């Protein structure tokens, strides 16, 4: 479904992403972890069209989309959420989500109905009329997901949708992601919260200084000495033991 072939992205002298290759198949739930500055969000920006890769190819359903703008990639079935949420602050929650639905439903009334359904799915029903700006952070993260879902993606990239949430909110969003995955959505998830990632992802890619240092099942990753060295630290291993 999505294939990265030796993707590289540089900013001046800094190589933020170096030679990253990966393969996402229909129905995958891939996790990407790594310390701050490892290049996770940069990689998302390349995949979703915000950055043009300096080298390598991004293939979406066999088509090279490297350098295509985000709106084209969205219409090909891939969209994303933003780590630093970007709600349409002055618009209602319903309008926010409806703007996503308008991409494939040109009629406003139909898009509004679709938006109501998506909002209910994401547990935002009671807040439909609220201004997006007035939402607390936990709900804004949900709004990011809802708005992206309204475009009916086949592949969804979630950038730290769990960061800053309390345990209850966290449980809710994990359940939501699981349900979406069970319904057939393919996902790539960037997350800092290891515990949640271990429960969620089938396969994890570890980035460090812009390079892939490990890839595998969660239990393999936690035992990988390079990963422990670079990211998890000994404490994590001890805590697991």
């Amino acid at each position, binding site marked *: 479904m999505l294939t990265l072939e030796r993707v590289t992205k540089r900013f001046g002298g800094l190589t933020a992403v170096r030679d990253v290759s990966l393969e996402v198949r229909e129905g995958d739930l891939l996790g990407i972890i790594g310390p701050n500055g490892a290049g996770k969000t940069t990689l998302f920006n390349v995949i*979703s*069209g*915000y950055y043009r890769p300096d080298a390598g190819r991004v293939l979406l359903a066999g088509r090279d989309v490297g350098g295509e*703008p*985000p*709106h084209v990639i*969205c*219409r090909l079935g891939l*969209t*994303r*959420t*933003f780590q630093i949420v*970007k*709600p*349409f*602050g*002055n*618009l*209602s929650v319903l*309008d926010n989500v*409806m*703007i*996503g639905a*308008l*991409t*494939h439903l*040109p*009629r*406003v009334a139909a*898009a509004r109905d679709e938006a109501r359904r998506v909002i209910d799915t994401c547990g935002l029903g009671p807040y439909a009329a609220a201004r997006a700006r007035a939402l607390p952070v936990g709900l804004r993260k949900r709004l990011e997901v809802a*708005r*992206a879902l*309204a*475009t009916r993606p086949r592949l969804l990239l979630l950038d730290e949708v769990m960061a800053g949430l309390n345990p209850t909110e966290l449980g809710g969003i994990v359940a939501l992601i699981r349900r979406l995955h069970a319904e057939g959505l393919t996902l790539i998830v960037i997350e800092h919260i290891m515990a949640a990632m271990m429960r969620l992802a089938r396969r994890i890619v570890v980035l460090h200084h812009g390079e892939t240092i490990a890839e595998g099942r969660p239990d393999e990753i936690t035992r990988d000495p390079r990963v422990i060295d670079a990211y998890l630290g000994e404490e994590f291993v001890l805590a697991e033991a």
Partner: protein
Amino acid sequence: MPALAPGRWVAVALFGIVALVPAGVRDAYLLDSVILILLWGALSAAWNVAGGYAGQVSLGHAAFFGIGAYSAALMTARFQQSPWLGLMLGVALSIVAGGVIGYLSNRLRGPYFALSTIAFSQVLLIVASRWRGFTAGSEGIPVPFRPGFWTLGLGHVAWVYLALGVAVLYYGVAIWLETSRVGYQLAGVREDEDAAEALGIASRRLKVYAVTLSAAMTSVVGTFWAQYVGFVDPFYVFSIDLSVRFALNTIIGGIGTGLGPFLGSLLITSLETYLRATFSGMKTGFAGIYLVIYGTALILVVRFVPEGLTGLAARLRVRSSRAHA
């Protein structure tokens, strides 16, 4: 947005009253005020498409106004053609110029965009005031009055209806922008371009379309204004004062709303006319006093009602519904 419904009724009432004015009023001075309020309102509504709905605050819209005014004035005075042809030429030129400004809006943000629009209108001012052989330079162009619709040589009553027609049409454009797919997508672009892109919206292209539409709408009223007033002076039609006025009317009335530009025009145009008549130099012995009062009034509005008249109305409505509850 159900909150807008009362505003629509206010619009129907206001435009309805204007339509009835010529039936009862024959006073040329009063009709002149009505025509100017409508034209200023339409110009502000045109500005609002870019500045309000697309979030691209331009301070150079006088450029498009001047293009419309000059196209028609030159077409009539120099080539003895219909001002309607001048109107179409003005629209065509403004679409090109608006496209350039729209392109700039994708390169420059906020204050830098606003500054570049000022520069653009100043360049046109220099061209119009220096190209003496063609535009008559700083002397300006008197527009010949030839009675008839095709020549736009109309009486006051006809002008009221023509200006009203444009005003209603432009109000309709605003309603379209608040209810249509394109309008919602544009709102998304205004709020956050990156997020809009992720939702499949070609945000840059949409912004260029909005600015271009706004430019063409401004040009049309520029043509009507020149034909109505009968004189085109480069230092007026390309002035920053004029650009600021479009923005000011809209901000005072309620930016990004359908009715706001018209309410702003109604308030500011009547305030200015009243103050100039009442506190003129002859009566007070102080020539600029009306400008001092006018400026103070504007500062007070911006200080205490920053969301504009439509926002104030919404606020009062919420308060009264709470009081009743």
